[in-house]
């Protein structure tokens, strides 16, 4: 019976934390759509949405309600099961990644020590990679099930793009793993808290990771999968109502999560300041955990802004440019970065 002795308090704690994290990701993604429109407007010398509610803050709700009330159309020639599975999968995989990200340091609540991380898996970063790659199935299945040439084209583009950029991303990450010697995200953050942020050790690696993250999120300049002007929306041409909303929303959640991953891997996660020991402030553990989580969110927001900034600056790549950049530039660069890192580590150990 020992096997069945479940720590119900732990289960409850994790369930509550999961609910909180998912709510936060959804709300952040909701307001990212608003932020996106605002940033786009500012960059184009406009004001952006400012009518719904104070400062236009209710705009995302209005957009959501609009999506909700749109007519639900499932094409007769489509595969219904897969057609519904596509957006659901995109949404689920987008949410799954948040499980292994350390959102903050340990906090103490009701006499319990609570880790602000849903699961500190020792292969955390591999899990992230696995789930993110699964995300493309949502797009592929949806585009296939639509039974539309343009959708299928978009799905194929998304698949080949993600395969190409996953390689460079993985290679840039290997160099990082050589330094940290751990796959656990929690462990990586702790190392960065004590030492340097990985960005200062791996600037080239970070750059490659950033570019690949853009490609993985299907964001401009890599949004060939949904190229409006060639593919009439690409993989979501046939979708309407909330299923379309799911696809669009999944993109924003993906952006949020990949920003969180980048902040965790290269910018010290919930570490507040680089090269500085925050314990010197002598604040209580709870307050430090809160400040740390806030610091992580600031970093995430900065990355999200960069995502949007780039989107409204650069036009879409041509497909051959995309493939050339991935295979002929980023992969050699990542390999070079990996070799240099390995050589330096070897040299320092001697």
């Amino acid at each position, binding site marked *: 019976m020992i096997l069945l002795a479940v720590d119900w308090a732990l289960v409850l704690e994790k369930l509550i934390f999961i609910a909180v994290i998912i709510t936060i990701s959804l709300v952040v993604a909701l307001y990212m759509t608003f932020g996106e429109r605002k940033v786009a407007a500012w960059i*184009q010398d406009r004001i952006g949405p400012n009518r719904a509610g104070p400062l236009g803050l209710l705009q995302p709700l209005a957009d959501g309600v609009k999506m909700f009330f749109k007519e639900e159309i499932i094409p007769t020639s489509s595969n219904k099961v897969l057609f519904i599975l596509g957006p659901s999968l995109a949404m689920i995989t987008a949410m799954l990644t948040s499980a292994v990200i350390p959102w903050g340091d340990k906090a103490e609540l009701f006499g319990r020590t609570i880790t602000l991380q849903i699961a500190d898996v020792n292969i955390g970063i591999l899990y992230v990679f696995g789930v993110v790659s699964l995300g493309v199935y949502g797009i592929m299945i949806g585009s296939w099930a639509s039974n539309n040439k343009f959708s299928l084209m978009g799905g194929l583009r998304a698949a080949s793009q993600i395969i190409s950029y996953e390689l460079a991303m993985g290679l840039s990450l290997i160099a990082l793993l050589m330094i940290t010697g751990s796959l656990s995200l929690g462990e990586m953050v702790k190392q960065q808290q004590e030492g340097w942020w990985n960005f200062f050790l791996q600037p080239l690696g970070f750059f490659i990771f950033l570019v690949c993250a853009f490609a993985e999120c299907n964001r401009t300049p890599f949004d060939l999968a949904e190229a409006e002007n060639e593919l009439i929306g690409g993989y979501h041409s046939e979708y309407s109502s909330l299923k379309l909303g799911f696809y669009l929303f999944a993109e924003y959640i993906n952006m949020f999560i990949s920003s969180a991953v980048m902040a965790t891997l290269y910018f010290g996660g919930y570490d507040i300041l680089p090269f500085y020991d925050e314990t010197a402030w002598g604040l209580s553990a709870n307050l430090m955990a809160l400040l740390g989580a806030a610091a992580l969110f600031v970093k995430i927001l900065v990355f999200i802004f960069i995502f949007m900034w780039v989107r409204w*600056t650069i036009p879409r790549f041509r497909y051959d440019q995309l493939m050339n950049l991935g295979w002929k530039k980023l992969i050699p*660069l990542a390999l070079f970065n990996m070799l240099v890192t390995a050589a330096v580590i070897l040299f320092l150990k001697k």
Partner: protein
Amino acid sequence: MQLTNRAKQVDRRPLNFAEKIYLPAVLKGMGITFSHIFKKKATIKFPEETRPFSPVFRGLHILNRDEEGRENCTACGLCAVACPAEAITMDAAERLPGEEHLYREEKYAAKYEINMLRCIFCGLCEEACPKDAIYLTETFAPANYSRQSFIYGKENMVIPHPKENPEAFTKAKGLIDERKAKASQQQ
């Protein structure tokens, strides 16, 4: 052979590594877009703010009254004759005894209609009027559901009565004076 000195030599060298990796160009572009974030916005928040009209802007018409509230229009028909779009129609009537407080002269317009869908807002009616009766304002014709509602009658155009609504009357008069001043400046 050189025809003009505007010809530019195009650089057709193959891209170097920095150009192939796109990053310098991307960063330059991002610099430009970032500077635009802080630039003055071109937007005019319409219902609250309006774009200033040109001094000669020509919008909807109004029919003038004098200081005692009597209508200026004598239904002479010069505006209708001047109108290139044939948007103006009117019926003349004779002023009866006891109506002196309503109409300034012994003839008046019993019906005065402008079809705002026909009207091209050229302002020739304003120029043609010898009686200081018709003026164009800085208002647009609002959108509507029926064609009939774009035919404006006297009830839509005659300015408020000085005794019934003195404030609105002085305001309308002020606008007319402004318009006259602007017109004289133009000449």
